[in-house]
């Protein structure tokens, strides 16, 4: 008995050739984007010392294309929230995040930005993910530079593996 293969395709599905080129385009754009992370350091507290250490020569985040901080959110695509976020500062963070152009990623740098750390009081926000979406969390109080580099590499892997639509619905 001979079975015939019937291709399961919907009427309006993109063709195989389109999908091939679309995937190749995603790979290419992902490769380009993962090596051109421009961080915006939103530095609020003592983790800044560790941020200085990680961006200095011995650890050399330029190897990952993530060394040049841009001090305008409009020119950057990686928001690094370094330190404790207070309730008084939360509107500022939200505004900075909204000023960043797509595509954008957010790193919660250190225990306080991740979860509030040991602050549970009237002043501190218990984690910046209560305000803005976070892509990667870096634990530690403060994190070792190796941890930050590991987080950058994990974020790069995610950028390389994700889809990169040129035209989005929010475009």
């Amino acid at each position: 008995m001979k079975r015939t293969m019937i291709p399961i395709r919907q009427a309006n599905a993109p063709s195989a050739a389109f999908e091939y080129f679309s995937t190749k385009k995603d790979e290419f754009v992902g490769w380009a984007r993962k090596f051109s992370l421009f961080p915006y350091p939103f530095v609020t507290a003592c983790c800044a010392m560790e941020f200085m250490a990680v961006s200095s020569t011995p650890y050399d985040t330029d190897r990952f294309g993530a060394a040049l901080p841009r001090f305008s959110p409009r020119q950057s695509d990686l928001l690094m929230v370094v330190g404790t976020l207070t309730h008084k500062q939360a509107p500022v963070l939200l505004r900075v995040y909204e000023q960043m152009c797509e595509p954008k990623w957010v790193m919660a740098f250190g225990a306080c930005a991740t979860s509030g750390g040991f602050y549970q009081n009237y002043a501190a926000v218990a984690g910046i993910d209560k305000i803005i979406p976070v892509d990667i969390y870096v634990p530690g109080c403060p994190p070792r530079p190796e941890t930050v580099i590991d987080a950058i590499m994990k974020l790069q892997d995610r950028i390389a593996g994700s889809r990169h639509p040129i035209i989005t619905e929010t475009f």
Partner: protein
Amino acid sequence: MAAAILALMQQQLVPAGGEASLSHGMLVVVVPPADLLGAVRRLKSEFAFDLFLDVTAVDWPKRTPRFDVVYHFYSTTHLIRVRLKTRVPEAEPIVDSLVSLYGSANFMERECHDMYGIVFRGNPDLRPILLYEGFVGHPLRKDYPKQQEQPLVPYRT
């Protein structure tokens, strides 16, 4: 030196209801709120305490005059510090502002007003300095709930 000045203060500065003592080598003078401004004026002019270091408060929830308002001064000629305390009740936590004597008292009184709700009569600008507009309550009072937050931005759900 400190003992001589303490004796002098005990003679001159401490009126009826006030007291002076020595705590860990530092002069401590307790005055009633009505005498505060006069006492500080004499501290500045006669005892040369020319540097205003800090003002803060202490909350004693079970004591009847509930708050201590604590001032620290430093004398750059005698090189000694003095601590000045006054007790104010919860119903009327009002003391006189020291802005007329020490300009640096302005911000510190605003902070004390934020945290404890002490009202400094005569301070030109008692807006929140560390807290934000719309914050309800005074977070360093003992009856403020320890983990109560007052977010300015609505949380994501």
